[in-house]
């Protein structure tokens, strides 16, 4: 393997933010390639600033480099300016660590945290000189693997990948490494031989080994082509987070990135059961990291990186047992610039949580974010986000009382059963929050951030037909029209939600649309300056695929979903019943502290929750121990 640095270097003075391409981060590992090692290129299909903080990628980077028979480097999507120069000069996609060509690696593993990045996956393969179609790859070409949340429905990428990994990667990467190493040692015979071996690894799905039959628009069957290929592939889950205290050498970049702070994962999984939330559904059950280990990782990480801010990450950090003890024990470092700041992403909506946030926030209290997600209690029982108005107003009151002057509220619109009253309820809640804030500061302001709901695979809402562009826009306008003084409304482009819906619940045929969008220049589709829905609609029309069929149509119970042969451990019956319960406005408390609903995850995998506290946290959690009916009351009546 040779370095492309001498060819890349002369271009860097001419592009924006060249530090994206030099590597050299704190925690970067000098790659030692060699005979008998499998060389991995861990790829993030978006720009460096977005990809570098990705914890999944950092964890695998370290685990692989620790193995004597593996070596891993990283790459991110080159920004359009550098890509143009690279293509002009025939320079292929390269790693940022040692600037080696993508084609020189044995495995390219993409982390997919969203769907609109799919066109970038194709672009990066192509830029690397690797045939984008799996069928056209020679045994000498790299093995293309995808993982991450979006890989739970990898069907739209079926034609372009060798394998998809479902679930957590810590253990499975080693097993894949063994298979690829053996395949290399045997002289890289046919790719199909490799696929057969990969398919034997639990959690690894090889699309080429399945025949999919369509009748009209419908999927009628998905059948393994060989007897030893599993009919259903089930996700991988590590049972004990304590055994995986990674990253041990967190990457601290030289240049500014989106989450520029130390991240320590405090638990994985979430059983609050929000029905719209794919992350919560596919990462069950809850596995907490021991508090002591959390502390050690914080201390070591801060020392290593020189950061003075740590983010305690999870899907709902305030639910971590003993969270108060952990945050208060982060010792102020007298020598550095004051005590490290602790940030708690994904704040729970209650006063207790805000009190906690106040304790750990730095001097500057710019803004606090809550996610009530829906405007009325009725709709919140539908989506199972069991937050009462009292919870929200209590949280907001506490925020203003603790010195914050701005709050941001996240809402989804286009949810199942949503009426215009529900939508307008968003503006009413925001007005209520402003009124509370005015008691504390005349500068009180509330920002409402509206996202168009996109149903995802492996959730109870996977059967729901999402709202079209016009309907979403109408609802956005409804909120804007109803918003009172002091309320600012921001919204996500409803056109992007439609394209995201197509890629999220598409089948294999949607891959042709993705390919067309890419060939027509549609890269960086997560970026509004490059996104263009017409490109997607034109591509779908050219392929004869009705977009509505994949997006705005409700699915029926008997329908074979394109991802039905893939399992996140959740029983289909559980998901269907939960979907029906949603329509009946029936909420479901968190199973961490209430009896199991037998969703399938724990029983099927021999797993258990790993939760230090036997009781729900102060402030309550998701209906546990609460009288759900009281949500209808409005204890704080606030009118402007």
């Amino acid at each position, binding site marked *: 393997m040779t370095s492309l640095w001498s060819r890349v270097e*002369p271009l*860097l*003075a*001419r592009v924006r*933010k*060249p*530090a994206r*391409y*030099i*590597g*050299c981060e*704190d925690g970067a590992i000098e790659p030692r390639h060699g005979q008998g090692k499998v060389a991995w290129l861990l790829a993030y299909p978006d720009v460096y600033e977005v990809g570098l903080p990705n914890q999944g990628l950092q964890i695998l980077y370290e685990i692989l480099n620790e193995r004597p028979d593996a070596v891993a480097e990283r790459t991110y999507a080159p920004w359009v300016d550098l890509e143009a120069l690279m293509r002009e000069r025939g320079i292929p996609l390269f790693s940022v660590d040692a600037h080696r060509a993508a084609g020189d690696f044995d495995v390219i593993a993409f982390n997919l945290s969203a769907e609109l990045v799919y066109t970038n996956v194709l672009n990066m393969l192509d830029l690397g000189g690797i045939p984008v179609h799996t069928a056209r790859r020679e045994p000498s070409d790299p093995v293309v693997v995808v993982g991450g949340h979006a890989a739970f429905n990898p069907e739209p990428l079926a034609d372009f990948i060798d394998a998809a990994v479902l679930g957590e990667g810590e253990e499975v990467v080693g097993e894949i490494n063994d298979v690829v190493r053996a395949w290399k040692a045997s002289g890289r015979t046919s790719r199909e031989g490799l696929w057969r071996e990969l398919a034997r690894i639990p959690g690894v799905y090889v699309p080429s080994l399945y025949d999919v039959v369509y009748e009209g628009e419908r999927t009628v069957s998905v059948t393994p082509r060989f007897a030893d290929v599993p009919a259903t592939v089930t996700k991988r889950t590590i049972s004990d987070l304590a055994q995986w205290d990674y990253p041990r050498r967190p990457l*601290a970049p*030289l*240049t*500014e990135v989106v989450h520029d702070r130390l991240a320590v994962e405090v638990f994985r999984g979430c059983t609050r059961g929000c029905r719209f939330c794919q992350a919560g559904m596919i990462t069950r059950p809850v596995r907490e990291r021991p508090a002591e280990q959390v502390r050690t990782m914080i201390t070591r990480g*801060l*020392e*290593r*990186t*020189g*950061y*003075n801010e740590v983010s305690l990450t999870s899907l709902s950090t305030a639910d971590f047992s003993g969270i108060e003890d952990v945050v208060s024990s982060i010792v102020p*470092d*007298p*020598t*550095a*610039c*004051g005590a490290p700041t602790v940030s708690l992403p994904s704040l729970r909506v209650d006063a207790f949580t805000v009190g906690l946030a106040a304790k750990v926030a730095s*001097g*500057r209290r710019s803004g606090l974010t809550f996610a009530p997600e829906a405007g009325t209690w009725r709709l919140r029982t539908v989506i199972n986000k069991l937050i009462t108005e009292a919870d929200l107003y209590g949280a907001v009151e506490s925020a203003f009382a603790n010195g914050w002057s701005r709050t941001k509220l996240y809402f989804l619109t286009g949810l199942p059963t949503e009426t215009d009253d529900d939508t307008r309820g968003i503006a009413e809640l925001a007005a209520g929050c402003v009124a509370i804030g005015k008691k504390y500061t005349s500068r009180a302001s509330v920002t409402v951030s509206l996202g168009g709901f996109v149903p995802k695979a492996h959730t109870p809402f996977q059967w729901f037909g999402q709202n079209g562009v016009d309907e979403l826009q109408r609802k956005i306008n409804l909120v804007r029209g109803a918003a009172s003084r002091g309320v600012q409304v921001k919204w996500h482009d409803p056109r992007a939600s439609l394209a995201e819906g197509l890629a999220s619940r598409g089948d294999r045929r949607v891959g042709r649309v993705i390919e067309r969008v890419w060939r027509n220049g549609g890269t960086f589709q997560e970026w509004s300056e490059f996104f263009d829905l017409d490109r997607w609609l034109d591509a779908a029309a050219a392929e004869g695929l009705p977009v509505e069929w994949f997006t705005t149509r409700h699915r029926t119970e008997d329908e074979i979903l394109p991802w039905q042969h893939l399992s996140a451990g959740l029983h289909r019956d559980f998901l269907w019943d939960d979907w029906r319960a949603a329509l009946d406005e029936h909420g479901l408390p968190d199973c961490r502290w209430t009896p199991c609903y037998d969703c399938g995850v724990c029983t099927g995998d021999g797993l258990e929750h790993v939760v230090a506290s036997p009781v729900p946290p102060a402030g309550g959690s998701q209906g546990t121990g609460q009288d759900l009916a009281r949500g209808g009351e409005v204890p704080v009546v606030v009118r402007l």
Partner: protein
Amino acid sequence: MKVRLAYSKVGKIRFLGHLDMAHLWERAFRKANLGVAVSAGFTPRPKVSFGLALPTAGESLVEVLDVVLDPAPSAERELDDLAPRLSAVMPAGVEVTGAWVAGPQSIQEDVVATTWVLAIDRDAEDTATRVAALVAAPEFWIERERKGERRRDDIRPGIFELRTDFDPSVLPADWRSAVSASALVEAVVTTSGRGVRPTELVDALFPGDEPWNVMSRVIRTHQWIERTDAPCAPFSVRARKELPHEQRIAVG
């Protein structure tokens, strides 16, 4: 105690911008376990101030920053210790070359001129001819942006010296070998006001060409201060008295 640090920035790390570099220093002080005083106010900022901004992709043998250390180094030895301690925690390519107690003046106030060496990927003879022509020109007008406005400026008065024949021994060996095929131009330019940038020099020498297509590398070798009675050589990699052309830089 306000301490002035001199450091170099060469190699891959040159692609890191000025602002990112400032953040990196903050992390470096913490990694080296050095306390930095913070400003008063609601959002305390560490008291670190930087000198002339080094353009992204430009290299330097003589960058400077002032930092208020709290607690202050208690002995001369501790001050001498700063360079190796900080070099160890900064990325490869950044090396702290000196540390001393800073005077009351800010870096910006002190520095009036800087020396660059430009590696020009053009024919050496042609480059020399163009250099001679620019030196001979009484004025040279270029269009450039200033505070968001496009305007025409005469940059010639800001070019104090420009030559192709100079002693390159101050340049690091690997830098010289990396540019062995290029013509080297040494320039001493003003840093007052808007200053004269290396890309502007290239533009003046090779009008119409994309500067970074002409110039493959550029490195700052000196920063100059007006006061000639300075106790040491804060901005020079060598002792000031060794520099033959020091006196010839007529400033102000």
